[in-house]
């Protein structure tokens, strides 16, 4: 479904991603793990068109999407839950959700809002509260629900466990798993290697902007490289 070929991304002079090749198949859940600064987030940002890659090719369902504008990609059925949630702090929870469905018709939008908030009762309880006042975990739920508004075919998640307590991390992963089981393809990036590997079908290991390992859940679980990457 998603294919990244020979991707190079630079921040000024600094190379953040070097010759990256990954792919995601339909209905698959793929994780990308690696230490801080390994280039995981840059990878997602490059795919999502937030950062301009220097070279390489990205295709989504056989369509080349390299250098596409972010909002176009969303309309193509791919969306990202960004690192650090990035909810709109001064807008209410419900407005955040509705904005997620900006491209839908009014009727569909309201219907979807009801639908996606169903698994997250807390969002319904706090409908009119400013999103910035939610706790980290709640914001993460909101960010995921917001991304689900457009019923994406492919959902990218950037560090969904960041700054969350273990119990919350657990909850977040439960929700993601649920989404996956309902048929959403997922590409997920997380520092929390253990959770990420447990969740996925297949994973990539990144280190300093390069792909250093790849394999299915079971292959990777006990390899040294993974041990190393999640411990540092």
């Amino acid at each position, binding site marked *: 479904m998603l294919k990244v070929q020979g991707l190079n991304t630079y921040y000024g002079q600094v190379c953040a991603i070097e010759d990256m090749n990954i792919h995601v198949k339909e209905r698959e859940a793929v994780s990308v793990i690696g230490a801080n600064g390994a280039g995981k987030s840059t990878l997602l940002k490059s795919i999502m068109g*937030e950062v301009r890659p220097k070279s390489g090719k990205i295709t989504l369902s056989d369509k080349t999407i390299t250098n596409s504008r*972010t*909002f176009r990609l969303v309309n193509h059925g791919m969306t990202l839950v960004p690192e650090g949630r990035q909810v709109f702090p001064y807008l209410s929870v419900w407005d955040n959700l*509705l904005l997620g469905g*900006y491209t839908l018709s009014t009727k569909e939008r309201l219907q979807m809002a009801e639908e996606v908030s169903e698994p997250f009762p807390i969002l319904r309880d706090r409908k009119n509260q400013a999103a910035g006042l939610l706790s980290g975990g709640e914001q993460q739920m909101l960010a995921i629900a917001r991304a689900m508004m457009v019923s994406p075919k492919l959902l990218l998640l950037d560090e969904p466990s960041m700054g969350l307590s273990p119990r919350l991390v657990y909850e977040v992963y439960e929700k993601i798993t649920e989404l996956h089981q309902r048929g959403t393809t997922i590409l997920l990036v997380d520092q929390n290697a253990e959770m990420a590997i447990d969740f996925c079908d297949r994973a990539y290991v990144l280190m300093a902007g390069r792909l250093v390992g790849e394999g299915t859940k079971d292959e990777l679980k006990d390899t040294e490289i993974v041990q190393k990457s999640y411990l540092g």
Partner: protein
Amino acid sequence: MIVDQLINGIVLGSVYALMAIGYTMVWNVLRFINFAHGEVYMGGAFVALTTMYLGAPVWLAYSCGMLSGALLGYLMEKLVYKKMRTAPKLNLLIAAIGIAIVLQNSAQLIWGASPERLASPFLANNVNIGGMMVNQHYIFIIIVTIIVMFLLEFFMNRTLMGKAVQAASQNIQATELMGINANKVISITFAIGSGVGALAGILVGPVFLVFPTMGVFAGLKGFTASVMGGMGNIPGAMVAGLMLGVLESFAAGFISSGYRDAVAMVILLAILLLRPQGIFGKVVAEKV
């Protein structure tokens, strides 16, 4: 005397309020001071004037003025500011000042330096309100300002497009992630803000005349009012504009007319130092 000055102040204040709302809209999305906003105010008034010369009825001329103001703002954003998104704020500021200079002098080339009076169907009549004779056009200005405020308030807080504008002001990248074309949202906001600015110029035209440099001080005042009201706050801008107008009139009436403009500047300084979030702004603690 007090009532006189109060009415003067409210009329003046309504215009400041409209200017302030325009500034606030632009600030809302790009967080920078569009120094050329005063020139949009002037441009709108001149186009209205020309349309009227060509024989258009008043309502059509006014609308044309507003639309051309909006177009001017849109072009400004499209041709200059958009290309400078990543530029330092200082460069943007100077570019805006450059645009203001260009527009002012183009206006002089096109329409000449001599002030013109914009026609108003209401200017000739005074209305008796509780024994006070108030000009009908003044009342027209106040009513239009209030309507515009409510419309924009509705647009910003009750429509999804308005929410998108707010979202873009908080986080452009996340806004794009919602499938929203943030550039378009910004352009539209710029156009609306500029249209409102042009409307202010059109409303003032019959009272204070239309001439190429009319935007300079009006711009400063509108800008002061928008800071007073809390940048980005539409009702705040409205109330602050009115307050500023009344305060100025009182200062001019009871202290010295020469220092009328100094009042606005002193208020601006005081607000910046004591309540930079504006009189009606809220302090929102953000994680550093």
